Structures are given as structure tokens and as C-alpha cells.
């Protein structure tokens, strides 16, 4: 089975570029050039150097001793939470801003939900001195005020998405509309492994540094490159894609995805796309998405703004459909308890997104000698308000 993208931009039956003609010149230009640019020695050198000196990579692979004892298995945490700006998102924005420069673009647009991708984009725009507009749902602007302030400090303009549900899905629509209106000088930095081809593949490749490092780090610690399992949370799925990438074709490595079940899969307030979604087209790609029988896209719900997306990246839809990935979902409650548990056991406050991945231990029992690598995609600073409210701290 092949898990890489095909020449036409598909993972099995998922992917493609379902875009209006207005976007075709930009997306086609990117499609024709992204692999070539990424292979250029000066591009690679600059990307690697920024990841090292600016982001702080490699991020540690940390053996979580007390968590391992509690669940009677060997758990390693891939510490993406220690990256500059506090999450894995910056791996991709560094790559894409360098790509935008190579393509001669002067202006950057992005969408954001919780604000993490917006902050990561505003950060690299400040670094490169480029204009930056971030679209964010009006509701998210209100509930993620610190990140809005960060983006403003970094010089970005934050534009509210006023349409639809006024959250991530609508911010993405607005960013796409901006790109239609500004087809010449603008590059759209998509934050997740979604969108029209080549975005899912490009974002996955920029994030694949995560699994590349896991391989050599695990070799140092365990004497082998391949763990028994890699675990990640999935909204659109960029951190998961990067965590899985170099293990996709290593059949002995189990791939585990944890989605956000919200208040329960059948509660009507959930974001568990693999369980609730059907094949359809959203934001330029064919994938699994939550929708009505009539093909109208429905609103997801999760306590975690980063997992609050009605679709899932086409790679993940393919992993689900082929059975290559094991898909689980964690409720708000399970995630919050798992986040608190990690804090108490290891002294690490995780982002609520990552807390969903940690909830895997409530759903699956691993063997004592299993090596489980879990991607800790972000830190919990941005979620303190949520933790305070939830636990009455």
C-alpha cells in the first residue's frame, strides 16, 4: 500500500485540488515548484538553520518515567511544546515563508482557530519583514484574546471572519476569498495538512522533521529507530502527519490517531471526523468531513480550538479507510483529566490538543515492553483559562 501522495495529488481516493479557477494559477504554480524548491540546497540550508537556531530544534524525545510506570509501558514524549511559539505549527510556517519568498510573494495570509498557527505565521512574517493578514473567526477572537494580542504585537493584522459560525472553518473561507482577491503578490500559509494539493503534502513534508528526529533519537535511547506505536491528536492533522511521516511505510510501527469527541461522539457536539464524517469536498480537497445528508458542512465542537475542524487531512482519511491508522476519540473530560495527569506526573502542562493524544491511555492498553512515542504538539500556556475554569483552580 502506498501512503504517499500520487502525482495527481491523491492519497487513495482522497485529496486532489477542488478549487475554483480563480485559485488555479497560484495553486498550480505551487504544485509545479514546491518539490523543486524544497530540494534546492540553499533552501534546505536556510530551513534547517532556522529550525535549529530560531525554533530550537531538535525538540527533545523525553522518556516519561512516571507516566510509563502508571500505564505499565514505555512512553516517550516528542516535545514539540518546547518549540519557539509553543507548538509544532512553526515548523510549517518557517518552511512556507521561505517557499513564499522563493516564489516572489510579498504578502502573507493565514487562517487560525485558537491562534497558534496565526501566531506562528505572524512570527515568521516579523522575522522576514513581510506583510501579514490573519483571518480568525469573530468568536475565536473573543475567546483567544492573548493570541490576538501576540499577533498584533508581531505586526500582523487580525481580520475577523464574520460569516457562518465565525470559527476556524469560516476563517479558512475568508482566507481563500482573500487569495482570490489578491492573486498576484500573496501566498496563503495553510496551517494544517488540508486544502488543495499540494498543500497537504507540502505541510506534511515541513512537519516531517518530527518523525525524522524521532528515528535517530530513539536509536540513541532504545537502540532502534522504530517504536511500536506513534500517537498524535488530529484536527486537520499537521502534527500527526509529521509524526507519522517516516513511519508510514514501516509496517511494524502502529499508527494511532486521537480525535476530539467533544461531549461524546453521539452528543451532536463533537469533532470526531472519522466516526461522523462522510467523503466530501471541503476547502479544496476531497476527504472525510462532517456534513448533512444534503452535503452542507456541519459545525464541529471540541473544548480544544485546535481540533475544532469539520474535516481531516486527506492523508488521514486514507489511513483511516485503509486501516493503516487506528483511530480513537477522546471526550473533553477525558482530555482535560489526561492533561492534568501529565502535569502532576511529569511537570508538563500540555496544550488541550495534546491532552487528547494523552487520553489514548484511557482507551488502549499497551504491553510493558511496547515503546510508545506520543507527540506532545503544544504547551498549555494558551489554555490556562480553560484549565482554570474546568478545574476551578
Amino acid at each position, binding site marked *: 500500500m502506498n501512503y504517499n501522495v500520487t502525482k495527481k495529488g491523491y492519497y487513495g481516493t482522497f485529496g486532489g485540488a477542488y478549487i475554483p479557477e480563480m485559485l488555479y*494559477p497560484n495553486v498550480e504554480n505551487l504544485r509545479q515548484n514546491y518539490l523543486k524548491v524544497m530540494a534546492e540546497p540553499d533552501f534546505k540550508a536556510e530551513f534547517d538553520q532556522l529550525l535549529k537556531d530560531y525554533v530550537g530544534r531538535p525538540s527533545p524525545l523525553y522518556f516519561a518515567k512516571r507516566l510509563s510506570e502508571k500505564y505499565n509501558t514505555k512512553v516517550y514524549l516528542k516535545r514539540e511544546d518546547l518549540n519557539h511559539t509553543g507548538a509544532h505549527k512553526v515548523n510549517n510556517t518557517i518552511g512556507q515563508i521561505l517557499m513564499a519568498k522563493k516564489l516572489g510573494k510579498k504578502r502573507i495570509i493565514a487562517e487560525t482557530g485558537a491562534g497558534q498557527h496565526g501566531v506562528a505565521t505572524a512570527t515568521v512574517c516579523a522575522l522576514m519583514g513581510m506583510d501579514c493578514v490573519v483571518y480568525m473567526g469573530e468568536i475565536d477572537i473573543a475567546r483567544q484574546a492573548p493570541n490576538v494580542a501576540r499577533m498584533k504585537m508581531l505586526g500582523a493584522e487580525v481580520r475577523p471572519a464574520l460569516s457562518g459560525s465565525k470559527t476556524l*472553518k469560516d476563517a479558512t473561507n475568508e482566507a481563500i476569498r482573500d487569495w*482570490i482577491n489578491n492573486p498576484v503578490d500573496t501566498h496563503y500559509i495553510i496551517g494544517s495538512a488540508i486544502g488543495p494539493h499540494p498543500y497537504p503534502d507540502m505541510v506534511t513534508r515541513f512537519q516531517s522533521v518530527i518523525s525524522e528526529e524521532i528515528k535517530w533519537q530513539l536509536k540513541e535511547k532504545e537502540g532502534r529507530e522504530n517504536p511500536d506505536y506513534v500517537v498524535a491528536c488530529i484536527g486537520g492533522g499537521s502534527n500527526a502527519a509529521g509524526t507519522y511521516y517516516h513511519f508510514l511505510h514501516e509496517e511494524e510501527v502502529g499508527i494511532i490517531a486521537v480525535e476530539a469527541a467533544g461531549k461524546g461522539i453521539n452528543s451532536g457536539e463533537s469533532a470526531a471526523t472519522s466516526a461522523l464524517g462522510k467523503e*466530501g*469536498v*471541503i476547502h479544496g480537497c476531497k476527504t472525510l468531513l462532517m*456534513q448533512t445528508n444534503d*452535503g452542507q*458542512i456541519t459545525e464541529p465542537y471540541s473544548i480544544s480550538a485546535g481540533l475544532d475542524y469539520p474535516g481531516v487531512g486527506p492523508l488521514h482519511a486514507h489511513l483511516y479507510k485503509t486501516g493503516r491508522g487506528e483511530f480513537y476519540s477522546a471526550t473533553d473530560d477525558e482530555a482535560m483529566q489526561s492533561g492534568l495527569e501529565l502535569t502532576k506526573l511529569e511537570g508538563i502542562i500540555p496544550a488541550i490538543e495534546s491532552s487528547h493524544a494523552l487520553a489514548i491511555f484511557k482507551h488502549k492498553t499497551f504491553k510493558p515492553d511496547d515503546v510508545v512515542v506520543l507527540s506532545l504538539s503544544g504547551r498549555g500556556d494558551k489554555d490556562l483559562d480553560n484549565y482554570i475554569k474546568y478545574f476551578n483552580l
Partner: protein
Amino acid sequence: MNRINKKMQEDKKLLSLYFTAGYPELNNTVKIIEDLEANGVDMIEIGLPFSDPLADGPTIQNSSTIALKNGMTTNLLFKQLKDIRKTVSIPLIVMGYFNPMLQYGVEDFCKKCSEIGIDGLIMPDLPLAVYQDEYEAIFKKYNLKNIFLITPQTSNERIKQIDEASDAFIYMVSSASVTGSKSGFGDEQTAYFKRIASMQLKNPQIVGFGINNNETFTQATEDAKGAIIGSAFIKHLTENGVDTIKEFVQEIR
């Protein structure tokens, strides 16, 4: 012969209007179509509303949201249009986004359109390559014309491909924008209109986006075969209601 092809042969500049089915009221569909024909409109795009219309500006987004809230569905639209060919003879095109069509079933959707007497489809997010690989045979089987868009940024080479793949007209987007965002045409548009005219394409071109009055209609159709008005018509319906279609059309012509 398909009604669109026949209409393109008429010796006049064509006026085509877009409206969102289910807006302002759920059951306005048939009345709007009949009134448009009665007032001399040449062709109609019936908008099937979608929750996430990413090529549309606020006016059509808003009409789509309200239409869906009113209860519009693919099935209901087909039901409303069931007897439309008893009263209306101008070309009718269904315009929407691909996902609702995909969920209905592409073949079932085409079959239903053909039974009703729909002449063509505009699905902006169904790209040329996917159409040709997967769906062209189905469209042809039901004698439905697929209308493609071109923009000022579309390369000549691709315009030729689109011309080759088309058999009705080419929807010429006047400027780089979503619907309803710009009005009036500058030198850049005029140059683009001339450039396309000079390409001597086999399909006539109908200009859309940015047309909202007699002046822009005249400018747009100087070289092109006709023009499409969408957002300006929706705005008119919002402000003046569905009984004033005559006034709107008269102002354009």
C-alpha cells in the same frame, strides 16, 4: 440542440441573471424564474445554496445562509422546478458548489437536471481535470453543458484547453475577486476583454462579476456575447422584494 447553444446564436447581447434558490423566501424560485423570462432576460443561473461558498462575497454568502435556514435542499429545489418547462423556455443553468452534487450522486444529479430540463451546470470548485477524468461522460449522457470559468490570471494555454473542453459558453470572470466585491471596469479589465476577444475562441464568452447597471453591462458586452448579474440582483431582491423584477431588468437594458 441544447437551449444554451441555440441562445448563443441569437443576434443580440445576452443578459443572464443569477439568484439563490430559497431566497428571500423558500418558495420564490418559480416566480423569480417566470418573472425574469417575462421581462426579457435571456438565461438564468439558479443558485443551489451551499454552507461554505468560498468564491462568493458577502451578498451571495448571506443569501445562501438565509436560503438554507429557510429550508432549501437539493431535493426541494428539484421538486420546485419539476414543472418549470411548462412555463419557461429560456436556458436554465444550475450553479452551485460540488459537495452537494457529490452527496446527491453525480449521475443522479445530472439525470434529475435533465428530466427537469436544466441545460447546463456551473460548479466553480469542480476543476477541469477532475471533470474530464471522472464526469464528462455523465454530463454528456444527459446533455448537460458544463460551464468553466476563466479569469484575468488564466494563461492563454489554459484558456485554449478550457475552450476545447467547453460546448456552450465560457464564463469570463471580469477581475480577480469574489462575487459582488467590485463595480465598474478600468483599463485593466478593458485590456483583458480585448485580449480574450482577439483569441477567437470557438465558444462565446459571457462576462460575470462586477456588473450591476446599464453602464457596466454595456462595457462588458462590447466584445463579449453577454453578461451575468448576480450580487446586484440579490441586493435588489433584498431591498425591493420579488415583485419588482421588471424594474431591475429595465434598468440594465
